[in-house]
Every structure is written in structure tokens, then in C-alpha cells.
């Protein structure tokens, strides 16, 4: 193990310990904060690598300036794995644990997600190394990663989040979830554009400007894509009007302020990015790009909260502390990217 690997391993264990203490020795409710952070960060982490994988598979020039920064988050999949392990006692709050079925039973649930996270981590690591070294097989590993990403995100959506609402289910939910992961990762690239502007311009010159515009256009496209997925989900529930199906929307639109939060998701994830990025001048502005990226993150965060809150209680203070801890870890990993993700000579 190299120095940085040891440091990361220790940091991951410390963070896991810290979050364990926060969750189980303080009044953390039913673990809603823990689940929120798992769902929010896994989307950004796995989505970031997926964005690079799409760029590699399609031979897109737009991904080149962002490649190292986006790929550098891959070790955090292990942190998510560790945080998932300490989430296991919270599974008792899932409604299906009272009558376990073939798919939704505790042992299979734990086994498939632990295996899934380990497999995704190793594929992401292999792909990141191939991509950074511009290896011959980077497109191949890109495809493998994208398959693993789609399966992993769908599994997370169905099991971690959708099964909270059991017996409600929707086959569209997995697709919405992995589109959101990709959307979040594009927003992360927008944040990088602002933070590393000088470095990117210095290294890539004019081609960075072109790549940045492409990322902004993709973010605009994903705002529409997200809206279509969200609306499709809403439409089938509205049409069917079946008691098991309407519960998802009914319990989230019946009372204030949950109703306002629910509708604000559409504003954050669709209306604001769509209207702002309709204008070319707005897309070209670094600060506007940063603000829209943060708005998208806020939208995704609010959506997760709106789904979790009616089912699992949340301690807001613990939620913020855990969010900041994982966020700081992410910043640390990105800043140390040159220690573990460099071109081998």
C-alpha cells in the first residue's frame, strides 16, 4: 500500500467511525440523514466516472479537461461501501422487513449491495487507470463501467429508496435515478470549471472553452431529460390512480411545507437550468455555470429528502454534519488526485 492509499484507508475508517457515533450515540432518529447522505454522494461519485466513461466511449473531446478531476473521486466508492455497512441496523425501519420476500429480504439485500459496491469500485479503478493512461482498452472498460453503473444505480434506487415506500414500486424509478447521477456529475464538472478555470485554461487553452460549452449544453439537455423522466413517472401514477401507486405523491403533496419542497424540485432541476441555459451568453459565464450547477445539486438533495422524510425521521443537524464530513473528504481526495491518479511513465 502506498502512502496515499494508507492515508485514505485510515481517513475512510475514521469517517465511518465518526458517522457511526453520530448515528447510534446521538438522537439521529431513524437514520434518514445517513440514508440521505448515502444516496446523494453515491450519485455524484459513480456519476462522475460515468461521465468520463461516456466521453471515452464516444471519443468526446469535451471530457478531456475534466478527466482527472472527475475520475479522482473513485476511491470514495469504498467509503460509501463502509457507510452502507453501518447503515445495516437501520434496515429494520423498512416496511418490507416485517414480511420479507424473495428479493426484499435482509440477507440478500446486504449481500447484493456489498458485492455490487465492491465490483463497481474495482471496475471504476481499472477504468480510471486505463483512461488516465489513455490505454487501448479504455473504451472497453468504459462500456463495462457504464453497465455496472446502470445496474448499481438502479439497484440503489429500487432497494435503498423505493423500497421505503413498499408496496409501491415503479420500473421507471431506476432510470430516473441513474439519469440524476449523470446530471449531478455534469454539475460537478460545472463546479470544476469555476474552481480550476485558470489551470484548465493554462493547460488546454481554447479547447477548454469549447469543452466547457459542451458540458453546459449537456447540462441543459439533461434538464429536459430529467423533466421528461420525472413527468413520465408522474403521468402513469396520475392515470392509474391506484391507491398503492398514488402514495408516493399523495403523502408528499398533501401538507405544507412538504408540498412546496416537492414542487421546488421541478424548479431546481428543470425550470432554472432550462431557462438560464437557453441563453448562450449565460452558458458561457463561469459564475452562472457554477450557480446553476449548485442549484441542480440542491434540487437533487431536496428530491431525496422529500422521498425519505415521510418514511424515516431525520435529525437536520446530524444530516448537515455528515454531509460536510463526506464533502470535505471528497475535496481532500480531489486535491490529492496527483498522488494516486497520474499517467504512468
Amino acid at each position, binding site marked *: 500500500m502506498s502512502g496515499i492509499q494508507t492515508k485514505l484507508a485510515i481517513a475512510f475508517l475514521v469517517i465511518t467511525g465518526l458517522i457511526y457515533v453520530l448515528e447510534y450515540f446521538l438522537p439521529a432518529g431513524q437514520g434518514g440523514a445517513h440514508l440521505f447522505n448515502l444516496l446523494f454522494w453515491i450519485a455524484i461519485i459513480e456519476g462522475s466516472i460515468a461521465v468520463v466513461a461516456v466521453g471515452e466511449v464516444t471519443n468526446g473531446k469535451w471530457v478531456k479537461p475534466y478527466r482527472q478531476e472527475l475520475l479522482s473521486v473513485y476511491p470514495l466508492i469504498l467509503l460509501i461501501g463502509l457507510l452502507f455497512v453501518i447503515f445495516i441496523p437501520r434496515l429494520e425501519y423498512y416496511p418490507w422487513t416485517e414480511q420479507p420476500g424473495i428479493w426484499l429480504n435482509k440477507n440478500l439485500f446486504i449481500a447484493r449491495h456489498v458485492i455490487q459496491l465492491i465490483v463497481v469500485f474495482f471496475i471504476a479503478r481499472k477504468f480510471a487507470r486505463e483512461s488516465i493512461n489513455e490505454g487501448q482498452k479504455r473504451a472497453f472498460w468504459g462500456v463495462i463501467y457504464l453497465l455496472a453503473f446502470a445496474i448499481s444505480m438502479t439497484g440503489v434506487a429500487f432497494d435503498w429508496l423505493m423500497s421505503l415506500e413498499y408496496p409501491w414500486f415503479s420500473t421507471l424509478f431506476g432510470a430516473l435515478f441513474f439519469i440524476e447521477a449523470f446530471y449531478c456529475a455534469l454539475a460537478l464538472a460545472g463546479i470544476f470549471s469555476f474552481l480550476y478555470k485558470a489551470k484548465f485554461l493554462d493547460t488546454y487553452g481554447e479547447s477548454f472553452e469549447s469543452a466547457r460549452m459542451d458540458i453546459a449544453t449537456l447540462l441543459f439537455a439533461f434538464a429536459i431529460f430529467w423533466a421528461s423522466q420525472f*413527468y413520465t413517472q*408522474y*403521468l402513469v401514477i*396520475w*392515470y392509474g*390512480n391506484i391507491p398503492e401507486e398514488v402514495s408516493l405523491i399523495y403523502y408528499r403533496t398533501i401538507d405544507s411545507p412538504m408540498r412546496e419542497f416537492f414542487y421546488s424540485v421541478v424548479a431546481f432541476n428543470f425550470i432554472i437550468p432550462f431557462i438560464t441555459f437557453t441563453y448562450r451568453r449565460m452558458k458561457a459565464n463561469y459564475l452562472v455555470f457554477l450557480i446553476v450547477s449548485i442549484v441542480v445539486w440542491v434540487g437533487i438533495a431536496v428530491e431525496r429528502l422529500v422521498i425519505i422524510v415521510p418514511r424515516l425521521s431525520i435529525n437536520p443537524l446530524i444530516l448537515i454534519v455528515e454531509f460536510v464530513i463526506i464533502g470535505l473528504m471528497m475535496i481532500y481526495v480531489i486535491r490529492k488526485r496527483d498522488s494516486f491518479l497520474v499517467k504512468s511513465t
Partner: protein
Amino acid sequence: MTDKMTFSKRAEFISKLRELLESGVPPKKLKIVMPHPDHEVDEIVEKYVPPSKLKYFTLAGALSGFIGGFALTIGTVLDWPLITGGKPLISIPAFIVIVFEMTILLGATVSLLGFLILSRLPSFKSIISPEDYGNEFVILMDRRDE
């Protein structure tokens, strides 16, 4: 009277084109013939020409589609009332899909028409050049005073 400047190298052609435009020659007086499309030429020329009016065609088409979509759905259910799934006759969530499709359809179709009108196409005279320049990059400059 037309001046003909022929270049076999792209870099020389680009540099001359830039020089002409920077010296104040109106883009209207220039005609460019290239063996292949080149985005850099678009980028150079677009600084000297007013923005395209194509977006107004798109907006007009999209708005017509949006209004037409609502008119079609609401008009047909009122003309032949059939209650479906116990929903009200005028059910906006269901109509949104038709409205969206109509917006895209008319927006795209009118954009294509606008493109053809603004580019003065189809113009067979422009497609088939009386002279064949082969692999050369050519700038034709109209010397006549307006």
C-alpha cells in the same frame, strides 16, 4: 467585376479571409468556395454578420405548436366527449404529452423552413458552380460599388 483569390493551403486562405474582414470588406461582398466545410470559417465570418433570424422562426413554430397542441386536444374532447379512466374531460396532465410533441414538431419543421428561406435554398445555381475549383480554397470578392 470580381477578384478571384485561390489558395491551395487552408492556413493561407484563413489568414487572407481574416485580413480582408479586418480591413473592413463587408462579408456580403465575399463569396467563399471550399473543398470541405470548415467551422473555423464560420467562427471568423459570424463576428462580422448580424445574428441569424432563424431563432424567430423556431420560436414562432414552437409557440404555434404549443397553442395548436392545446387547441387540438381540448377541441377534440369537447367535440366528441368521452370520459376516460374517470378523469375530467379537459385533463391537462394527459394533454401535456401532445402539446410537447406538437411544440417540438412545429418548432423543428418551421426551423427547417426558415433555414431554407434564409439560405435561399433550394438554389441549384449555387450548388453547381459554373467553375470547378477542385481542392482549392477560393475567395471571390465583388469589386463593384454599391
